[in-house]
């Protein structure tokens, strides 16, 4: 009996480099060759892409004879599928190459094998046949069926559109990701210069173990740098492959340091979703799970849509009009950085600049939490380098807010971390200046 053909779209779990796939080719002299491919990637309904990294014999064979066969395995069910392939061409740029390069580079950066696992090209193959080995055997699944993504997206968008009574859009977003999609462990990061700072987290029972990441380093840094969603469905297995590659390569050990992830808890699958609005990176949502395959090809597109929606939502001005009778009317005078709330003087100078930054970012992005480090690195605050006295300025600001009746509070919520507290929405007005006072008051 000829095994039934299986549509490629039904085996997407097999097609993102979780379990390396044996790929057979055949030389013109008739001798077969097998190599393990780190990634067999879905291109469209009848094509796949195979990474071209180290496989000289495979490349030579494909030049002589385009026929190949690859065995792929569903990492959740361990079902196996045989794909008969016909090599079409090799791409060294374009969307397929970039998608695969993103994935491999994120993994390589995470495990410190960046110089070793460089992608030289992607071989595009037509899938002549796709059949399941041992057709007819009942499939044993360890995971439930994927929820209806469109329904869940609809619910998520409605969550994000609901009135934000707590004025904490980031918190709302992380809650919605948990409630709607079951993404229980999430971290929200914001860019500051060449770093990403953790500003909010959910599901960790405390702060994540790492709070700063360099753009370009590790999974999170690469996702931010390339502005591309990166998913690793099975982290441990991918790291095993990367380690095997690294152990054979002549790279210095110091170049092979794994990059810390936000948690040291049991992590089997991770995703990094950059938030990009108007071409600018405005944040990044990191997700992790203790379930194998939680983030992968089946929900990568979903994560991309979530990222676009969050970026757009968080970039919108808060829906508070200046004439909203509930709003605290904040006026900021650039001349001396003084801040007034409902007409009452609050503070001026560097603490005023800091307060204005916090309030402005809250209104623009819904943020409620900030880190000392991002304040220290923000050149717009004009803090003197080397001796910024940030801590004492923050103490002064907190005390002033505590002692007043502006409806604004600022509390320490952890080491180097601050949280805004607002009784009411804000309506902001900035009064510019072109006069000489600004410079004189810059570093009080």
């Amino acid at each position, binding site marked *: 009996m000829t095994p039934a053909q299986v549509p490629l779209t039904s085996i997407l779990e097999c097609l993102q480099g979780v379990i*390396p796939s044996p790929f057979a080719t055949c030389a013109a002299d008739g001798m077969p060759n*097998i190599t393990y491919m780190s990634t067999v990637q879905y291109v469209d309904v009848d094509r796949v892409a195979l990474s071209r990294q180290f496989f000289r014999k495979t490349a030579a064979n494909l030049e002589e004879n385009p026929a190949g066969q*690859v065995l792929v395995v569903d990492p959740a069910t361990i079902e196996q599928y045989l794909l008969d392939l016909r090599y079409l061409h090799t791409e060294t740029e374009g969307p397929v190459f970039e998608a695969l390069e993103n994935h491999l580079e994120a993994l390589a950066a995470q495990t410190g094998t960046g110089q070793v696992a460089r992608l030289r090209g992607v071989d595009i193959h037509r899938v002549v046949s796709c059949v399941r080995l041992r057709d007819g055997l009942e499939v044993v699944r360890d995971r439930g069926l994927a929820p209806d993504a469109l329904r869940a997206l609809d619910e998520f968008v409605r969550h994000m559109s609901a009135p934000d009574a707590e004025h904490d859009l980031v918190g709302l977003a992380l809650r919605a990701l948990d409630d709607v999609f079951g993404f229980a462990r999430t971290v929200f990061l914001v860019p500051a210069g060449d770093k990403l700072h953790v500003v909010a987290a959910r599901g960790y029972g405390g702060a994540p173990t790492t709070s700063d990441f360099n753009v370009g380093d590790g999974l999170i840094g690469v996702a931010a740098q390339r502005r591309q969603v990166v998913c690793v469905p099975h982290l441990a297995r991918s790291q095993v492959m990367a380690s095997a590659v690294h152990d*054979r390569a002549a790279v210095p050990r110091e170049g092979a340091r794994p990059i810390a992830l936000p948690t040291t808890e049991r992590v089997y699958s991770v995703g990094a979703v950059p938030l990009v609005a108007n071409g600018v990176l405005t944040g990044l949502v990191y997700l992790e799970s203790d379930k194998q395959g939680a983030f992968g090809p089946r929900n990568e597109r979903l994560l991309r849509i979530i990222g676009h929606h969050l970026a757009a939502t968080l970039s919108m001005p808060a829906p508070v009009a200046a004439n909203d009778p509930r709003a605290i009317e904040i006026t900021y005078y650039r001349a001396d950085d003084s801040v007034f709330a409902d007409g009452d003087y609050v503070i001026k100078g560097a603490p005023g600049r800091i307060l204005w930054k916090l309030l402005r970012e809250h209104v623009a992005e819904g943020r409620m939490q900030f880190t000392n480090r991002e304040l220290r690195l923000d050149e717009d605050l004009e803090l003197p380098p080397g001796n910024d006295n940030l801590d004492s300025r923050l103490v002064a600001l907190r005390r002033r807010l505590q002692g007043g009746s502006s409806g604004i509070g600022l509390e320490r919520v952890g080491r180097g971390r601050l949280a805004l507290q607002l009784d009411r929405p804000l309506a902001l007005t900035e009064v510019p200046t072109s006069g000489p006072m600004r410079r004189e008051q810059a570093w009080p």
Partner: protein
Amino acid sequence: MLRSSLSSALQTRVAALAREGAAIVVATRDGSLRPSIARAWGVEPVVGQDAIRLCVEAPALSQMRKNLRPRAEIAVTVARPVTYRSAQLKGVVVELGEPTEIDLARVDEHNDAFSLDAEAMGFSPPQAARVIDREALLSVTITVQELFDQTPGATAGAQL
């Protein structure tokens, strides 16, 4: 490679990897040079020869079953799932037959080791046990002509 050193490498690299739980994959080809892949189990070097014996999953009517015949070219990789340390040998089929009791005992031993490695990778024991297709096993003896290091990386393909 000298015959004695090849025999020795078959023992120290191929059989040792299999005893540790390595996955074995074989590739053959048809008359149009279209390759076919199948899993194999229970590899054992043939004493005194540059040869191995193993059991290949080759269901009746499958392309693998059609391809397996005396003098057929064949490639075999032996790779541990937890480290991806692997080796590939190439040679020709010299003998085919139904698996003996000794073959099947070796298959069971290999599958047990493989299951332990698979569990270490996060697969459940029932899942790991399902990888093997015992009903389709065919005993194959191969004369080995070449043996290569196949661990992924820049030196993959170097002759051992």
